């Protein structure tokens, strides 16, 4: 079966990376070695599809008997490498391999003018894709953490790809350090787990009651899970560590597409989804995840309202959508926990599945939006939407594909985003009904989610109208992008349009996904999804659906009337309270400013003080001692009188003192 060869999936791109890094320049054939990377990522894609087919047929690779090798063993712990494939892995493989391959193909056109540095670009992209595969295939948390960090490394290298640009070098550093703050939490959480459970293998950690059974107090278990989620806060750009992502736009747009759609930020969502069997043992941690997700979704959406950089709008929208995913995962988990105590219930996997579903759909429409934005930037040479406009005429393919992406993210049926976002909000609402002590919190979170839906529709169409309609505001001679760029756009647009139908094709996406937790959460909880067609009926009879649909439509219409019809001039809001609000949003709530000030004034300040302390106090004491001994040497020299009787006296007195000391302290006895 192909699933046994799944370990080759990450190996292909990594071989591509090694080829490009190590072979002589003349062997690179064409475009800095792009053919190797296209070939390798296509190989991974094909193999991924074969593995996914295996998974669809009910084969998985989850358990202690899956192939593994020891990486490191020292006394009481052993760290291994192995492969873990279940339904969640399958979805991730699909997303990473498909988006990764399309991005590489698209790069041929996009990076055409880059010259010598293309080689480095393709090498780093290949490594990026390879280590992301490694991350999703890992069968234990150490292996996952290793690839997790390598994913961070690759995004550091690629965000800072144009290293002569000061802003790029700075953004790359910021991305790495901020995510590393999250990684500290993740690492701490893992160490706690390793200490108590004695292993970081999924197969043991995911057993029922694994945390309590290890002798952990419930407080320690919750702490370890919150720390684990801390890694996702950094990686998936959740509040309050979300500010690195908008800055990460400094890399090539292809890199942004990869980071936002398939690799980097999806790793955090994957981590949370992967940890589900443990998370359901700690309801407080789940509530924490949902709350952070809800706050992130709302805050990022408000920031997107005023952004004028096309990539920043998309970046904020990513943060916001990631917040949705976390919200759904947290809410879904809480529902499961609640029902674990109260007996069985249908549709238990709904929150979990809707989070993953949204992640998959988001991967397609966000990759599409970024690549389309890249196509626009490629054509007009700027990111500034104020300088765009009227591009719809010259860039038909780009504008239509981007429209599909925007409709999808805005949640307009039948595009993919509608289905998953509706389920995300529905799960949140169910958590309000079911989650016991947290129910009020979830009502607020649901309202925040609906508000976010409104804003999403508004800012996406604000972007679309500003870019493609109206008068052309720059004199750049825009033209449609080459085929290698438009073909990936069209493929992604079709996916963004139809991937939502996975919801009710066959036995339905939710039923499929639920398998991945029902096998690990334990038989006591029946995680069964509702029949897809039945749930389809439920969607369109539920008032909740219409609520979210209406707010999206209103958002879209508002953007239409302001930015297309010009019914209302935004410049009228530039003063007074609304002006202040606008400034607050444009300044990103001063969060970024705060971090900079904190890092520069507090941390760097402390380090300067420490440096001075080191030089003048510690070293000063040493130099002072040296000075003292040379001075005292000069002083003691005077005692060397040369008169024998003085010396004899000194010897006698000294001898007596020594004797006294030995008598009093009985040296050697104590």
């Amino acid at each position, binding site marked *: 079966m192909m699933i046994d060869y799944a370990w080759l999936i990450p190996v292909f791109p990594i071989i591509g990376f090694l080829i490009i890094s190590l072979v002589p320049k003349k062997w690179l054939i064409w475009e800095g070695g792009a053919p190797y990377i296209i070939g390798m990522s296509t190989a991974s894609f094909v193999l991924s599809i074969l593995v996914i087919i295996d998974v669809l047929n009910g084969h998985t690779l989850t358990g202690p008997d899956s192939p593994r090798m*020891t*990486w*490191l*063993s*020292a*006394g*009481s*712990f052993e760290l291994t490498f192995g492969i873990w494939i279940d339904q969640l892995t399958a979805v991730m493989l699909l997303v990473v391999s498909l988006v990764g391959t399309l991005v590489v193909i698209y790069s041929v056109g996009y990076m055409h003018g880059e010259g010598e540095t293309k080689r480095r670009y393709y090498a780093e992209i290949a490594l990026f894709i390879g280590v992301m595969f490694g991350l999703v295939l890992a069968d234990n948390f*150490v292996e996952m*953490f*290793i*690839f997790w*960090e*390598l994913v961070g*490394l690759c995004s*550091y290298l690629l965000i*800072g790809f144009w*290293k*002569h*640009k*000061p802003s*790029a*070098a*700075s953004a*790359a*550093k910021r991305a*790495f*350090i901020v995510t*590393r*703050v999250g*990684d*500290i939490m993740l*690492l*701490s959480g893992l*160490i*706690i787990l*390793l*200490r108590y459970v004695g292993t970081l293998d999924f197969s043991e950690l995911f057993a029922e009651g694994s945390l309590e059974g290890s002798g952990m107090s419930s407080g320690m278990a919750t702490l370890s899970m919150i720390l684990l989620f801390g890694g996702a806060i950094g990686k998936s750009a959740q509040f309050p560590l979300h500010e690195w992502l908008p800055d990460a736009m400094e890399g090539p747009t292809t890199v942004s597409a990869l980071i936002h759609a398939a690799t980097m930020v999806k790793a955090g969502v994957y981590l949370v989804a992967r940890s589900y069997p443990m998370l359901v043992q700690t309801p407080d941690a789940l509530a924490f995840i949902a709350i952070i997700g809800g706050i992130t979704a709302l805050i990022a959406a408000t920031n997107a309202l005023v952004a004028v950089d096309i990539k920043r709008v998309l970046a904020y929208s990513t943060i916001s959508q990631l917040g949705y995913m976390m919200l759904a995962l947290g809410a879904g988990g809480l529902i499961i926990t609640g029902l674990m105590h109260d007996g069985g219930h249908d549709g238990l996997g709904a929150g979990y599945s809707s989070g993953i579903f949204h992640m998959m759909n988001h991967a397609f429409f966000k990759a599409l939006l970024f690549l389309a934005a890249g196509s626009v930037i490629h054509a007009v040479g700027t990111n500034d939407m104020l300088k765009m406009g009227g591009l719809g005429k010259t860039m038909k393919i780009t504008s239509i594909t981007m429209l599909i992406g925007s409709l999808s993210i805005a949640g307009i049926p039948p595009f993919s985003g509608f289905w998953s976002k509706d389920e995300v909000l529905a799960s949140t609402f169910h958590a309000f009904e079911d989650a016991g002590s947290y129910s009020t919190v979830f009502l607020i979170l649901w309202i925040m989610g609906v508000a976010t839906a409104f804003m999403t529709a508004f800012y996406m169409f604000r972007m679309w109208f500003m870019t493609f309609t109206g008068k052309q505001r720059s004199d750049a001679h825009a033209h449609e992008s080459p085929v290698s760029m438009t073909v990936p756009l069209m493929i992604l647009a079709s996916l963004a349009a139809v991937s939502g139908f996975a919801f009710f094709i066959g036995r339905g996406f939710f039923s499929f996904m639920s398998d991945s937790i029902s096998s690990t959460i334990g038989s006591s909880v029946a995680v069964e999804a509702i029949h897809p067609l039945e749930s389809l009926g439920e969607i369109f009879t539920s008032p909740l659906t219409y609520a979210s649909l209406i707010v999206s439509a209103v958002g879209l219409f508002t953007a239409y009337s302001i930015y297309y019809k010009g019914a209302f001039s935004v410049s009228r809001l530039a003063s007074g309270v609304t002006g202040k609000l606008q400034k607050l949003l444009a300044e990103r709530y001063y969060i970024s400013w705060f971090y900079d000030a904190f*890092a520069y004034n507090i*941390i*760097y300040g*402390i*380090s*300067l003080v*420490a*440096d001075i302390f*080191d030089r003048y106090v*510690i*070293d000063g004491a*040493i130099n002072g001692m*040296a000075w003292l001994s040379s001075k005292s040497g000069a002083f003691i020299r005077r005692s060397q009188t040369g008169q024998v009787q003085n010396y004899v006296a000194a010897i006698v007195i000294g001898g007596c003192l020594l004797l006294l000391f030995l008598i009093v302290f009985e040296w*050697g*006895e*104590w």
Partner: protein
Amino acid sequence: MLEGAQSFAQDLLSGLPVLSIMIFLPLIGAILVFLAGRSMSIIRVISLIFSGIPLIFAVLLIFAFSWGAIPDGEAFADPQFYEEYEWIPSLGVSFAVGIDGISLPLLFITPLLTFVSILFSWDVDRRPREYFGLILLMQVGVTGVFVLLDYLVFYIFWEIVLIPMYFLIGIWGGPNKDYASIKFFIYTHVASLVMLLAIMAIYFNAGATTFNMMELGDAASGFTRGFQIIAFGALLFGFGVKMPMVPFHTWLPDAHVEAPTAGSVLLAGLLLKMGGYGLIRVAIPTLPEGASYLAPLMAVIGIVSILYAAVVCLAQKDLKKMVAYSSVSHMGFVMVGFATLSYVGIVAGVFVMFAHGLVTAVLFMTCGVVQHHCGTRMIPKLGGISEKMPKLATYMTAGFLASLGLPGLVMFAAEFMTFWAIFNNWGLWLLVPILSVAITAGYYLWALQRSMFGPLTDKIETENIHDANWYESAPMAILIALIALFGILPAIMIDRIGDAVTIILRAIGGG
């Protein structure tokens, strides 16, 4: 296949006094270099050969080393490749050498770092005979320290190391070399004397007739608690200065700033390890009660060193001084690992020493290349240098990433194990030292951003800057390959370290 390699290597080495050869071959080399006359190329080739042959032996030793079965007995039971020759029978002094898992990794990096330092110093033309001769002499001393099993001879070799380093800094150093070299000498010499006093106290208190470490180690079980605490305190000071630990670290940045690159590589890569090695070879197994009494102090010193030095790194403007302080921070991990007095912690501490030796050598070499080619190492004067020196920028990035503990490179496994051991012993105190993970990333990446990336600087003449030469690139490339190898397969070393640690723990009655 591995067993085949092991028996093959054992066959090759059988009957040879491997360790004595490894100690004295560089001495012959040093003498030949002094006699070699004025030809630069002859001097270099002799130096490379006489540091290279021990390197080949060291690689063979890694293969030939037996591990996995713990021999019965007390500390230092069955050191491998053991040799013993009587020297001063009346005092019970003999020349005894042997290795276990703790010596092995350090014994491997000793000829390795010497070899690459000599290669890196290919163009040193100022008094080359003395320069290369002293480097070889230092190899003699350091190799001896890591394999000798007799306290008195150990001390002699310990002191031998100081002299070449003193001259390397004092003759080939920077503008402030006199101050730095004397400070280095006095500071570490005072530490050595305190260590000697403690060793003497152990010798006399044991009523021993031998200086053999193994036999003294056996006798040590009769020591009183009070004596153990005092003697351990003295050894802790002696070795702590050497490592160096805050607050006795200030000789290190001064010495590094002035030392020539090869001197820095050997100083940070090997000489600092002598402190950590002494702690785990001499102090902890011989004075176990003292160790467990003072373990909290060691932990505090270690954690303070980790964080304090990392914070000071952030303020440095001189690349090399920053790297020097980062050594203090990393050696703090060694101290904390040992302070746990647990299997994982001690294995981790030894592995950190090994990893740091490889990584810090690359870092000092990159600083040396920058100094050499740009005429300055001051970060504010640099900027955008990667445009002129892409190869150097790659090596520096790789070195920095390795040093900040990126998985896949050698330091990660070491730090991970240390953190685990800290949590295992002291619970959530882990959250304090683990902060260094972010601070370390901060100072490295910030330095990289300011010196290598961004627009090309106009504060220095950049017209004639060219990339690293072959003899500068090759050593860094070799080391980075090893950093990746041991990062991907840390078990190669960690498995071999384990037995020795088990024996030490058995001696101190712990896990």
